[in-house]
């Protein structure tokens, strides 16, 4: 198995094209790790009289290494959403966002150049001055507009407009790590300390069951979907612990809101996930992803088969990870920072990280459940295309499929950011009403549709082209109808400068004398 890594020749020959391409990958990390640990144990413990122990030892160390690799990949992958949150939301909200850029090391406040190196003795400051001068002149915040140059062009982007903001994560970490731990005096100390660990550990455990690729996962039990959703649902308990134990009115209200909201949205989420499992006929996440891939059983992305389910999953997941418009539990305008008001330093940093990790998990799950997992869009069609098909086959073989999954997840997160920049926070009662009265019935309807699709339509082979096309067209038409919904009467009155609408008087009986 490990040999596949080195046998590059297999990339251009010897692999059947189109036959479950995405499910297999030369990037066989699990196989490589297993091979390495097996060889190591053979050469070490296998030589001794404890050789019988080598089997479980090699297995254990392979799993351990795999968990570490997944942890590192997750931690690197979550830098993407954090960076996107900074840069993308700034652009969507018509500003560039404050960031710690690398150039902040040499551009001073207010375009004032403090030449401290001139005070150094023996001329050792000269090279520092030269370097600073080069950076200042070429990558500074000067402007050709003299009025702008007075204060310095703070929005300078230059060639590396993409880079500013990346370094912010490390600056944040440094700040969190240095800060003192200050629990409130009247807090319930044990619960207060335990709550962030419940949240962070369960969040990290979710990633044990999320595959990054066909052979890039930490654990893959048969019921990985059930495990994953169960662990995903523990964090709200930690949130409630945190809100309660901080002994602060803001955290308490935040915790209560969180409990109400997450309970209301957990149920439609689980029913939607159940409908996915029904449609794909499995409770294993990898099998769900492979069901949608070309050359496998279904070979159609689930989003074309259950657009309603995709919308439900997206909405409930945004609510579950407490992002705008469902961020009532941490409504900054009214609750300071919601249930995590009293946490500071590294604990706050970990909670912050776990929020983004949960968002990343939501995006990865959406990609796995609805966007065909690690398959490139129309992969088999591209490979089967005349003339250029061979090039595509080569590209898909040489680039690990995990990359497509990550890109999909980041695109979904970009959608999250877009939603956050656009929509306003929803009132608590409206959130709950939306959850219980709209999402719950809709998810039940989706479950019924999935059962009908699986039992009544699906015949074991690839889906007939008509089914996903029809469902997608109907979904788009419904969306268009919703979009075109407009108050025509109000349009006629739109030039009226003031509101003259009837006011419902607050006093009792005020409606009795109301006319029209």
């Amino acid at each position, binding site marked *: 198995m490990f040999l596949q890594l080195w046998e590059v020749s297999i990339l251009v020959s010897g692999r059947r094209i189109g036959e479950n391409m995405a499910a297999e990958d030369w990037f066989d990390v699990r196989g490589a790790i297993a091979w390495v640990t097996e060889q190591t144990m053979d050469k070490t413990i296998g030589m001794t009289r404890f050789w019988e122990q080598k089997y479980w030892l090699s297995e254990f160390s392979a799993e351990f290494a795999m968990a570490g690799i997944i942890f590192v990949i997750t931690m690197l992958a979550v830098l993407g959403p954090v960076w996107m949150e900074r840069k*993308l939301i700034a*652009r*969507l*909200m*018509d*500003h*560039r966002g404050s960031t710690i850029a690398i150039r902040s090391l040499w551009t001073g406040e207010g375009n004032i150049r403090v030449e401290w190196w001139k005070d150094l003795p023996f001329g050792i400051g000269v090279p520092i001055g030269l370097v600073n001068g080069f950076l200042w002149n070429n990558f500074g915040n000067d*402007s*050709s*507009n003299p*009025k*702008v140059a007075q*204060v310095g*062009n703070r*929005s*300078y*982007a*230059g*060639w590396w*407009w993409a880079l500013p903001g990346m370094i912010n994560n490390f600056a944040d970490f440094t700040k969190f790590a240095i800060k003192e731990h200050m629990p409130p005096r009247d807090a319930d100390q044990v619960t207060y300390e335990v709550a962030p660990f419940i949240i962070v550990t369960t969040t990290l455990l979710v990633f044990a069951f999320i595959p990054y690729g066909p052979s890039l996962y930490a654990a893959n039990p048969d019921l990985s979907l059930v495990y994953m959703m169960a662990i995903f649902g523990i964090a709200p308990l930690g949130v409630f612990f945190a809100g309660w134990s901080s002994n602060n009115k803001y955290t308490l209200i935040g915790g209560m809101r969180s409990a109400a909201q997450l309970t209301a949205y957990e149920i439609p989420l689980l029913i939607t996930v159940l409908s996915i499992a029904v449609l794909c006929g499995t409770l294993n996440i990898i099998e769900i992803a492979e069901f949608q891939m070309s050359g496998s059983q279904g070979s159609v992305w689930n989003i074309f088969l259950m657009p309603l389910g995709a919308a439900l999953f997206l909405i409930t997941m945004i609510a579950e990870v407490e992002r705008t418009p469902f961020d009532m539990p941490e409504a900054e305008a009214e609750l300071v920072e919601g249930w995590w008001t009293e946490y500071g330093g590294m604990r706050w940093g970990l909670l912050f990280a776990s929020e983004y990790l949960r968002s990343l998990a939501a995006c990865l799950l959406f990609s796995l459940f609805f966007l065909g997992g690690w398959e490139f869009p129309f992969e088999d069609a591209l490979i089967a295309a005349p003339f250029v098909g061979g090039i595509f086959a080569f590209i898909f073989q040489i680039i690990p499929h995990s990359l497509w999954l990550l890109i999909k997840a980041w695109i979904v997160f970009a959608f999250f950011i*877009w*939603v956050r*920049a*656009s*929509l*306003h926070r929803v009132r608590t009662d409206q959130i709950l009403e939306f959850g219980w009265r709209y999402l719950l019935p809709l998810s039940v309807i989706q479950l019924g549709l999935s059962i009908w699709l699986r039992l009544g339509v699906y015949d074991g082979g690839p889906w007939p082209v008509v089914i996903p096309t029809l469902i997608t067209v109907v979904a788009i038409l419904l969306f268009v109808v*919703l*979009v*075109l*919904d*407009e*108050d025509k*009467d*109000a*349009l006629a*009155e*739109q030039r*009226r*400068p*003031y*509101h*003259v*609408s*009837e*006011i419902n*008087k*607050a006093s009792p009986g005020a409606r009795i004398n109301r*006319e*029209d």
Partner: protein
Amino acid sequence: MAYHPRATPNFRNLVVRPMWITLRAGLRTIPYIGPRFFSSGYHGKIAEMFDDETKSRTGGKESSQIYAADRETSHFVKSISRPVTVMYPYERLEDLEPWLFVPNNYNGRIGVVWETCTACKACVRACPNDCLHMESEVRVNVLDMPDASEENVGLSSVEFVEGGYLARKNDDFEEIENSFSLETAHESAPQQYDFAEIIDLSGNTASVRWSDSGKTESVDLEGMIPAEQDIVSGRIDLGRCMFCGLCMESCPFNSFFMTNEYDGMSGLTRDDLWMDASRTRVLPVVHKEAVDRELAKRADKERSKRERAAKKASKEA
């Protein structure tokens, strides 16, 4: 309940439009493509900061400025520009980006249709900050106003009496009614009537003293409108107002409004914040609906009263 078309709480206005607006703002920051296809029409335009008078006073000093010059972003890619500064009051955000309207139910400057006010002082009692004050003023009764619908004219109980008041339509009454719009003219509403005190009443003529000029004159009552002294007008201490809108809610005659105007409320002294009747006046022109509704209500009341009286009289006869 009629909403502003952009404020109607439907899927389009709550989800689709906001997402399209933010997407546009985001795409606008893309070099070359953004300014060309997603521009709002005022990018890179030169804004004139001074009016002609100010310009002549400052001796032709440079008065124009490119929008948001401090947001120039790149030495290399000049087209990455992002204007954000709207030069209010010379420019208004609603004019530049019409989708960013002021909501109808925004509690802004106080506006009163003094013509339909009956001085019941419900608003004064409702005000938690004691910022409303009432005083008397001479005014035309709404049911005698020439713009009231025909069947309602003459249903007010105000008559020409000695020592009473009369009003005459201003020459530019029609013009004011048709062209004055607080939307565009951010100034106090002009007077639609000239008022006079009736000194002597004889037949169809009366000698009156005009309130504006103080001149005494003999006028024909034809074309004159009876006015009342006991109707009061109010002053509002805007410095104390918290824009809660309780006054508006308490008004039983739909005469009191929180307009959605956000300007014309500032001053250099505390005294400037005392809004007198002229600064709060909302012409019935811009409030046709509410005024018409109120007029119809009062006319109905008066009509039924007269019918009852006539019936009673006929029964007695």
